[in-house]
C-alpha cells in the first residue's frame, strides 16, 4: 500500500508538471466545461420563464440557476477521459511501457485525472464566482447538505473515473474506441441529468435513468449541494447507492483487467 501511495504521489507530481506545460490548453478545456452548463441554464431558464407558473418540472429560474451552477462544479470535479485515452495508449504502444511497471496503469491515470482538477482550479474558481454573481441562483442547502454534497461529489468523481476506465477496457478487444467513448459521454449527459434535470426527462426515459449509474455521478450530488434533497435519509441512501455502484465497478475492473491483459497484443511496441 505504501508503494501505491508513494507511486501515486509521484505520478501526481509528474502529471501536474505536464499540465503546467500546457496551461493554454487546459484553460480552454476548463472553459469548455463551463460553457456547456451555462448554455443549458440559459435554455431551461428561458423555458421556465415562458410557462404560466414559471416552472418546468418543478424548477423555477432560480432553481435552474442553482442546479446548473452545481452541475458546472460537479461536472468539472468528476470529469474523466480514459474512455477515449486508453485506446490511444494501446494503438500507440505506450501502454506497453506502463504495463512493464510493477503497478497498475490505472493509478497513473487517476493521478493524471486529479492533476487536471488541481491545476485548473485556479482558473475555474473565479469563473464559477462570476457565473454565480450573474445568474443569482436560489440555494437552500444547509451545512449537512453541503457536507454530504462534498462527499457525494468525491464519490461521483471516483464513479465516473472508474466506470470510464472499465468501459475503456473494450479497447483491448477493439482499439478504435473513440465511438464508444463518445457514446459513454452522451449517455452520461442524458441519463446523468446534465442535459436536463432528471425530473424533466420524458416518462419513457426515467426508468432507464433510474437503473443506470449516471444519476449518482451528476444529478444526485448537484441536487444535494443546491439543497433540493431535504431528507437526510434520502441523502444517505444516495451515498449508499454510490458506494454500492463503486464496489460493483471495482469488481468489474478486477475481472475486466485480468481478461484484458491476457488479450493484450502489444502492437506498436
Amino acid at each position, binding site marked *: 500500500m505504501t*508503494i501505491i501511495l*508513494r*507511486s501515486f*504521489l*509521484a*505520478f501526481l*507530481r*509528474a502529471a501536474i*508538471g*505536464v499540465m503546467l*506545460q*500546457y496551461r493554454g490548453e487546459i484553460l480552454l478545456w476548463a472553459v469548455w466545461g463551463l460553457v456547456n452548463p451555462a448554455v443549458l441554464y440559459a435554455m431551461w431558464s428561458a423555458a421556465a420563464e415562458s410557462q404560466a407558473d414559471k416552472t418546468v418540472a418543478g424548477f423555477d429560474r432560480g432553481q435552474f440557476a442553482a442546479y446548473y451552477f452545481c452541475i458546472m462544479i460537479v461536472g468539472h470535479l468528476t470529469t474523466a477521459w480514459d474512455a477515449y485515452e486508453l485506446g490511444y495508449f494501446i494503438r500507440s*504502444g*505506450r501502454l*506497453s*511501457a506502463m*504495463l*512493464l*511497471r*510493477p*503497478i497498475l496503469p490505472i493509478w497513473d491515470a487517476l493521478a493524471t485525472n486529479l492533476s487536471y482538477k488541481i491545476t485548473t482550479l485556479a482558473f475555474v474558481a473565479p469563473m464559477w464566482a462570476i457565473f454565480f454573481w450573474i445568474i443569482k441562483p436560489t440555494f437552500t442547502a444547509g451545512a449537512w447538505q453541503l457536507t454530504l454534497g462534498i462527499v457525494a461529489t468525491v464519490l461521483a468523481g471516483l464513479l465516473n473515473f472508474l466506470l470510464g476506465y472499465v468501459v475503456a477496457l473494450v479497447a483491448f478487444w477493439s482499439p478504435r474506441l473513440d465511438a464508444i467513448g463518445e457514446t459513454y459521454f452522451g449517455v452520461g449527459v442524458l441519463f446523468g441529468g446534465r442535459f436536463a434535470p432528471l425530473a424533466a426527462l420524458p416518462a419513457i426515459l426515467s426508468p432507464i435513468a433510474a437503473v443506470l449509474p449516471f444519476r449518482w455521478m451528476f444529478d444526485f450530488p448537484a441536487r444535494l449541494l443546491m439543497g433540493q434533497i431535504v431528507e437526510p435519509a434520502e441523502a444517505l441512501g444516495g451515498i449508499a447507492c454510490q458506494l454500492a455502484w463503486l464496489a460493483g465497478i471495482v469488481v468489474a475492473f478486477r475481472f475486466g483487467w485480468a481478461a484484458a*491483459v*491476457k488479450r*493484450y*497484443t*502489444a502492437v506498436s*511496441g
Partner: protein
Amino acid sequence: MPQIEVNNLSKTFRVPEREAGLWASLRSVLRRSMREVRAVDHVSFTVEQGEIVGFLGPNGAGKTTTLKMLSGLLHPNDGKAQVMGYVPWRRDSGYLQRISMLMGQRSQLHWDLPVVDSFLVHAAVYAIPKEQYQASLKELVDLLELGDLIKKQARSLSLGERMKCEICVSLLHRPQVLFLDEPTIGVDITMQARIREFISTYNRRYGATIILTSHYMADVTALCKRIIVIDHGRILFDGALEELSARLAPFKVIRIDLDRELDGYDFASLGEVLVREGRKVELRVPKRSAPLIAERLLSDLPILDLTIQDPPIEDVIARAFGGGRPAAESASSTDGDAGSA
C-alpha cells in the same frame, strides 16, 4: 539452476486480412477474414545467470514476441516459462521489480518533463531507497555520460541522447534480468559503441542476465558469446558466436559509388554482384579478401565513395538457412542444441 527456462513456448496472433481495393473493403464489412500467424512456434531454451544471449533473426521472426512474453507483456498460447522462478505473464509485482525491458522505439520517459522527473517517478514506483537511487543515478550518469542531459525535457533530446536516458531509467532499480529489444536502433556508430560498452559493464558489475535482439551484427559480436537465431517463430541455431560467425557470415558487402558509369569492368570476377545500377555497385566478397578487393577497386576505378560492411542480418540468415528456412541437417542439429541449451 538456469535463471530463464523456456519450454515449448508458442504465440499465435489472429490478424485481419483482405485484398486491396474498395470492393474488398466493402466485402470485409460483411465478412471479415482472419488469418492466424504463428509468431513463436514451440521455442525452448535456457539462460544461466549472468549470460548475455543475442537473439537474431529477420523482421517478424518472433524475437520481440518472445521477449514480450518473457517480460510479461504477452500471454502465450502454449508452453511454459520461468524467469527467476516467476511465471512472467502472471505479472507479479515482485517479478516486474526485478526485470527491465528496453524497447528501442518505445519511451518510458515523460515527454514533456525534464528527464530527471521521470527518474523520480521510476524511483517511487520501484520503491528504490533514497541512498540506492542517488548511488545508481550517479553511477549511471557517469557511465552513460549524461551530465546535464537529465535536466532537459525528453522531447528536446536527440535520438541518441534519449536512448541513453532510456537505458538509464531502465536500470535505476538495478534489474537482475534485462530484455533489450534493439537497444542501439537509430543511433550513430559512436553512440552504439558506447551503449554496447555500457551494457557489458552493467553485466559484469551486477551479474545481470541479458537477452538482446538487434539487427546490428556489431551489437551481437561485441556483447554475446551465445546466439539464438530465430526465424518464422522457430529456433534455427543456438550456440557459440564463433560457430555462428563462421557458418553464417564469412563475407562482407562492398558498396561503391563511381565517378562515372563503366561498362567493361568485370566486377563478377571479384565477387558476387548484388547491385549494379548506373554508378552504384554492390559486391558480396569473402570476408578475408575484402581489404584486398577494396584496394584493387580503389586503384582500378574512379571511385567517389567505398564502404565495407557486414551484410544485413536478414541476408546472412537467409543465405545460411536456405532462404530463412532451416536446412534438414541444420534443423536437426540446431534444434537439438536449442532443446539442450
